[in-house]
């Protein structure tokens, strides 16, 4: 598994360190997300998982280290990362609440469309074709996540689980190579969790590699090809679910050292 990932790596995290005034949030972490991978990132609260994702998606600039996507180093503002092909969702859902579901997905198309000021005002054939293509794509994605019928609803009026799915559809609209999911099943019940896992697999089957942060061990171990464990900003272990589950250091990190 590891060798395969290294050979066909899409997104490479190399020695990424993020330091906030005196706090070392992420400490020289390496991570690979390969074509067709579902990679899990777990760790106790405050282990630096979300900060790592923020570095991987351009929200935080790493203090040291670099992010490469398809061999190219990514830097700068988040939209460059998205345009390059790294999309993400947020732990605390961040939709555009007063836009419709359909429009939320269209916003995700922004970096894949080109119409400029003059064309938008002039409404030529190019504008119409591009709008139609975006609409078709958005419809397809809403169908894919199961929100086709809620297209005209305002995003804020969706149920919690639907909001998470809309966020995924919006991220997919930018046609990413890698999708970063930050706690996609937070606040879901058992049935919704199964549907979420199924959705992640279907995303992978579309040809989008997935990296996912989760606290739910069963969810992660049932879903991922590889799992990385972060503890206090450092990568403690990385391996298959079976390897990680059996690792004494992981158990210690979560439950504390056995007292003699």
């Amino acid at each position: 598994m590891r060798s395969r990932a290294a050979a066909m790596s899409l997104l490479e995290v190399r020695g990424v360190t993020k330091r906030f005034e005196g706090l070392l949030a992420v400490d020289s972490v390496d991570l690979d997300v390969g074509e067709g991978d579902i990679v899990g990132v777990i760790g106790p609260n405050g282990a630096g998982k979300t900060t790592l994702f923020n570095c991987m998606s351009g929200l935080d600039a790493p203090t040291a280290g670099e992010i490469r996507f398809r061999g190219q180093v990514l830097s700068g503002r988040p939209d460059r990362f998205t345009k390059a092909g790294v999309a993400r969702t947020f732990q605390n859902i961040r939709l555009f609440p007063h836009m419709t579901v359909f429009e939320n997905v269209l916003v995700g198309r922004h970096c894949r469309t080109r119409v400029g000021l003059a064309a938008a005002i002039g409404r030529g054939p190019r504008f119409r074709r591009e709008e139609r293509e975006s609409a078709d794509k958005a419809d397809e994605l809403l169908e894919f996540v199961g929100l086709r019928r809620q297209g005209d609803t305002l995003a804020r009026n969706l149920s919690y689980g639907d909001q998470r799915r809309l966020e995924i559809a919006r991220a997919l609209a930018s046609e990413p190579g890698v999708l970063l999911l930050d706690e996609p099943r937070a606040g879901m019940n058992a049935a919704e969790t199964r549907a979420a896992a199924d959705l992640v697999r279907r995303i992978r089957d579309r040809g989008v590699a997935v990296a996912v942060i989760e606290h739910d061990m069963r969810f992660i171990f049932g879903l991922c090809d590889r799992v990385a464990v972060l503890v206090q900003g450092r990568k403690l272990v990385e391996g298959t679910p079976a390897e990680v589950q059996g690792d004494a250091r992981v158990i210690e990190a979560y439950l504390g050292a056995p007292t003699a």
Partner: protein
Amino acid sequence: MKPPALAVAGAAGLVAGSVSPWATFAGFPGKMTLAGFPGGARLFALLLTAGAVLFAVDVGGRRRAALFAAVGAGAIVVMNIVAIADQGGGLGTVAWGAWLALAGAGALSFAAWRLPAGEPAPDEWPRLAPALEVGAIAVALLAVLGAVVWGLEIAESSRFISFLVLLVFASVTLHHLGVFSALAVLFARHHRMAMLLGAAAAVAFPFTQQGNAYWIRVFASIGVFAVAAIGLNVVVGLAGLLDLGYVAFFGVGAYVGALFSNAALTTTNIHLPFMLVVILGGCIAAVFGLVIGTPTLRLRGDYLAIVTLGFGEIFRITANNWDGLTRGPNGISGVPDLALGGFDFGESHELFGVTLPGFANYYFVELLLIAGAILVFTRLNDSRIGRAWVAIREDELAAAASGIDTIRLKLLAFAIGAFLAGAAGTVNAHVTTQVSPDSYTFLESILLVAAVVLGGMGTVPGALLGSTALFVIPEKLRAFQDKRLLLFGAALILVMRFRPEGLVPSKRRRRELRSEAPEGVPGLAGASGPAPGGPLSA
């Protein structure tokens, strides 16, 4: 359905009271001492009494509608009782008709309050034949034009306030009956026709003034202000960037207009064709927008507001001190009237038997400018650019993570807003015939923001309505002199308390309507009735 006896009694009392004397002394506006005639504010109360019809017909939302109509009638009576007592010197000067009407309004309100809650107004009204639907749009626009003309004709402040109360309560009543949301659907469905009819109503306005220049002059001021308000609406309403120095762009345009038109006291002696000057004014203002925006748009919210405020003041102080170009505090006066192809804009003209004063010419030019601004606003709003702006307004970080170059798009919003303000400014230089720094104070910026927020952020009708209200109402309250701004401030507070989303709230367009507008017809995204779930329907 049989209406309750109390409602019948209340309505009868209101009608009888409205045609009976309200004042015991002559001199109160509206012939209030006459019997058998609903003069002055009595007519407004009588009009709201028509809401009593709702007791006989069971339609959705009728309880609140009937209640607001009855309470509105009562409010007009109370207001006039206070005004009459104030002018006449005591409650004894209030005649019996007013008391009868007040009792009637009370009974009617109580009866309405006791109505069963019933169904809310339907979201969708049944479809009619297209001709009928267009007819309904025409009637609605005619009603708006009629209300404007009627309101402007009212000279006395007390009666004008009564008229405003009528407008407010009648609107709320219609809102609860679902009339506005039905009209919004119609406007979106027959978009082009509605725009055309709206333009026709706007063009018709100067013809209603019978050669009187006063209100046409006021509307010529409103026109330029409205263009700037639409521009500011791009910045504040769509992109969510609070710009407290926006009037500076307007000022840049005005100076460009004055300097390139061979004004009497010009410093440049350059005269360019007006069409070119409008574009030039817009472009120079847009460049200013980019210059100001580049360092500041990395800031957010409050910080941006403070910095733009500072830049607005820098513009004003610079204009005040750059004697070589702007002639400092004296400003550039003697800006000539426009003359296009031998047509002098300063002259009055005879058309269809009506004398149109010179200001009407500017008003018509401004209508063209407004049409252009509406085109830019609605088409951008309904494109990837407008969606990106709204996304930035809603959640800047999520917008960036969705692939939007937020800095670039914010700059674009700034530049477009500045362009529209600049273009409006060039026209304003000719309307006011002089440009001086004291016209571009912080207060003007605040008024523009107020117009946008009052009207409804992110909507064109909101910006138009807000600008109009902001000019007309203070103009109408002149009789109150020093209390004028106090009353105006109170009105603003009331609107913000009861309708924080503005008079015409923004509503994202539904796709059903989108797909019925063939070949990407621009969306009148703002043409929408009050949003359900607003504070008024709570």
